[in-house]
């Protein structure tokens, strides 16, 4: 296939206009010695029909969550996506637009981002939000950098109960900035405010906690955040946006920066990406926040309009002094999340959160009642929980898989010490009957 649209005779006509003898001659500044002359070891092009055969075969070689019962979580969740999200986010005017630098020709996208920022604030209880970062883990890493820049301190305390990928990405970023990352152990599955207090000092720029955390447990932000502020440090909280439908927002506990993985807000699983990095903060910190921000203003006739604002924080203006190197963000995913949040609305999001909670607790109780299975931590979880078992986890996963059930994430993939544990997530999509099937399958291993 070709997506170019010039005929041979048009090419000739254009070359005449240019005054060039051949297309080849337009490449004369590329030295002969380094030309590959089209000799690429890439397959020949194919027709659309052949392409479809190829990708159908590849897609068909994947077992997907529409056909299996998905109890997998760990940062990516099988939530229900209303049809209106795909329908409206799929509009090609949104799909094929660029970053809205030209405000007059981009009012639609700008208004969408303004609404997105507002809804992220409503969820998190924060003053301001940006128009997205890449995904949850890099959002947390950016928050760490932001806190260090604001506080001009290099020490950061990070709870061990955050997602292991988030921890790894924070470490990758921090190493580059020469930040000192101190891990706060969470042997009981959640942060102990006393342990935290003992690790704080006046050199600490911030503390990172995730709630609900990687194990699904709700952290006591009411006890944690005051400990952080006692030392003048910033509290960085990573959230599950669905959890915000039911749990008190970090803003109500005086968090300074809130980040999160926005995938649960209407974004398909897509084997891990593209997802959506959320970031919100207190308004005093806005000028230190990375990423694009849309503001409301007015035009020459006084009409309301929107434009990118505070661009002097960004790399295309400030270069090496920018708050981050981020340029391309996750615009279309932010739009998906906006459509999802407006479709679910105030009541719907609370209902989703509530159903996740009840279904997860029902599942946990049933599973923990089985011989050889128990809850690893206490019951203060939201939609996800860790099961500890006396049986072989790999065998459990395989055996459930034979019944078409994705039973959970084996935690051995993150840490050998967790070899007897797996993480089970239950969203609003799972029915009682499906949960009972999981329980039966686990019992039969």
């Amino acid at each position, binding site marked *: 296939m070709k997506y170019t649209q010039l005929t041979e005779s048009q090419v000739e006509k254009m070359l005449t206009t240019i005054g060039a003898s051949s297309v080849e001659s337009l490449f004369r500044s590329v030295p002969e010695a380094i030309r590959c002359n089209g000799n690429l070891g890439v397959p020949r092009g194919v027709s659309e029909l052949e392409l479809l055969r190829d990708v159908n075969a590849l897609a068909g070689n994947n077992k997907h969550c529409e056909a299996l019962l998905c109890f997998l979580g760990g940062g990516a969740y099988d939530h229900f996506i209303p049809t209106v999200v795909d329908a409206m986010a799929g509009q090609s005017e949104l799909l094929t637009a660029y970053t809205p630098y030209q405000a007059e020709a981009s009012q639609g996208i700008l208004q969408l981002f303004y609404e997105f920022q507002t809804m992220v604030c409503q969820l998190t209880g924060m003053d301001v939000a940006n128009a997205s970062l890449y995904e949850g883990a890099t959002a947390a890493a950016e928050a760490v950098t932001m806190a260090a820049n604001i506080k001009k301190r290099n020490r950061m305390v990070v709870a061990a109960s955050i997602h292991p990928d988030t921890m790894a990405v924070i470490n990758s970023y921090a190493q580059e900035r020469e930040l000192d990352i101190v891990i706060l152990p969470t042997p009981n599955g959640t942060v102990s405010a006393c342990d935290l207090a003992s690790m704080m000092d006046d050199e600490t720029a911030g503390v990172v906690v995730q709630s609900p955390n990687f194990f699904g447990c709700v952290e006591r932000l009411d006890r944690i955040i005051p400990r952080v502020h006692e030392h003048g440090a910033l509290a960085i909280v990573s959230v599950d946006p669905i959890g*915000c439908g039911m749990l008190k927002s970090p803003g109500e506990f005086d968090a300074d920066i809130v980040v999160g993985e926005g995938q649960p807000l209407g974004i398909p699983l897509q084997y891990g990406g593209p997802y959506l990095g959320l970031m919100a903060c207190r308004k005093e910190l806005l000028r230190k926040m990375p990423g694009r921000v849309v503001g409301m203003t007015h035009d020459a006739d006084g009409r309301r309009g929107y434009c990118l604002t505070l661009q002097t924080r960004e790399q295309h203006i400030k270069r090496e002094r920018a708050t981050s190197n981020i340029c391309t963000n996750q615009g279309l995913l932010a739009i998906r999340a906006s459509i999802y949040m407006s479709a679910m609305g105030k009541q719907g999001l609370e209902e989703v959160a509530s159903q996740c909670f009840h279904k997860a607790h029902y599942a946990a109780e049933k599973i923990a009642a089985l011989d050889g299975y128990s809850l690893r931590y206490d019951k203060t979880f939201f939609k996800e929980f860790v099961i500890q078992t006396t049986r072989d986890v790999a065998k459990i996963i395989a055996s459930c898989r034979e019944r078409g059930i994705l039973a959970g994430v084996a935690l051995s993939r993150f840490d050998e010490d967790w070899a007897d544990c797996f993480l089970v997530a239950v969203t609003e999509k799972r029915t009682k009957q499906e949960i009972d099937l999981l329980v039966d399958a686990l019992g039969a291993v």
Partner: protein
Amino acid sequence: MIPDSQKENHPLLFEQGAPGMCAVTLPMLDVPTTDKKTALPAEMLRSTPPALPEIGELDIVRHYKRLSHRCFSVDENFYPLGSCTMKYNPRINERVAAMPGFAHVHPYQLESDVQGILELLYRLRCDLAEIAGLAEVTLQPAAGAHGEMTGLMIIEAYHASRGERRSKVLAPDSAHGTNPASCACCGMSSVSVASMPDGRVDLDDLRRKVDEHTAAMMITNPNTVGVFDDQIVEIAEIVHAHGALLYLDGANMDAILGIARPGDFGVDVMHYNTHKTFSTPHGGGGPGAGPVAVAEHLVNFLPKPQVIQHEDGSFGWDYHRHDSIGIVRSFYGQIGVLVRAYAYIRSIGRDGLRDVAEKAVLNANYLASRLKHRFKIPFPPPFAHEFILVPEFESAGITEHDIAKRLIDYGIHPPTMSWPIHHCLMIEPTETESLATLDRFVEAMLDIADEIENDPSLVKTAPHTMPIKRLDEVAANRNLQVRWQQSS
């Protein structure tokens, strides 16, 4: 375009609907309930739900439909935005990415359940390495700037493995802003290398600045003024002679696909922007993907996990890479974007890739040839896939900014403005445009030049056809309103 009847302020979501309204109904809860206050500390529970909008489905549809009409897009408008490669985004790619076997797969499914995705990623990895002329590719980075950061981390790890700590990075003064910003993210300092009047790197300045503290030189080639720097082999030699590495910002790969491979002209590390070169949609600012390709001596430092093919022919993730810089994001990458890039490369193939470069370059040179009689084109031809144009209408009080805004009235998205040199427009037509569209653009530019002579105020106050006039961006910065609030 926007009908006149819709040019009034379009209400925000929050100004629509009514309390109690909700578009989505969930099935009735079918499990016994758990007392929230028993399971969770009461202090942690919300007393009222978040104040999200309360709107019915039809009004939601109309809202997003109307807002979509208030955007320029490649599907509706010519978009000659230099450095951004706003080419056509083939429909088939969207169909492919939406297939349940790609769209609804969880990242923690067993490898045996995702062999199709892994095979696709493996093939893409190999194709991207081949197009780059480099040894191996990581698909993990989320966007170009993220790729730059990943590349610089690899470069640091390489020097560290040789017992060296180098923190200086050279970049031409015409470099993308992300280059120095990425250096800063990696704790490295960027040093600007001068360009000559013809847009190429000043080799004398390069020789003065490169030394044993230099970790790398970051270069864009063809560069941001649209010129392929024919000194590239010499640049690579100078950089390498000091033990430094050559990094290519792949933003302009469109111009050399199938023509020249970066690995063959001395590049050690490069990133791609799939949303530029490989036709994945820009989505109003993302998502992109920023795969990074490296030469043989850097392979061990690539992020992990890496997608591999086992000896038995199956595919999997390799986590056992001891020298790896680690992970730079959660999970494995922007898979949905990479699926589209795969579909694109597979469909156009090796001949199509070369055709892309040829037509992209032909289109740019054609526009430059037609516009040069009326506008100053400061750099010498031949151009790569884009060129710089400097409007000289100061006497009429007209700047590049005004011309850009007037183009909007012609239904054309403005070119990149005022960068990489002052007062310029940077024009990149891309390969997918027809001759008729190119000619329409030329006519629009010539018409605007006439307008400037006859009625400059028409240009000065443009655009006139949009739902709003020029915005007060200074007020937006001074009186920050970055969210809606009940009282506002």
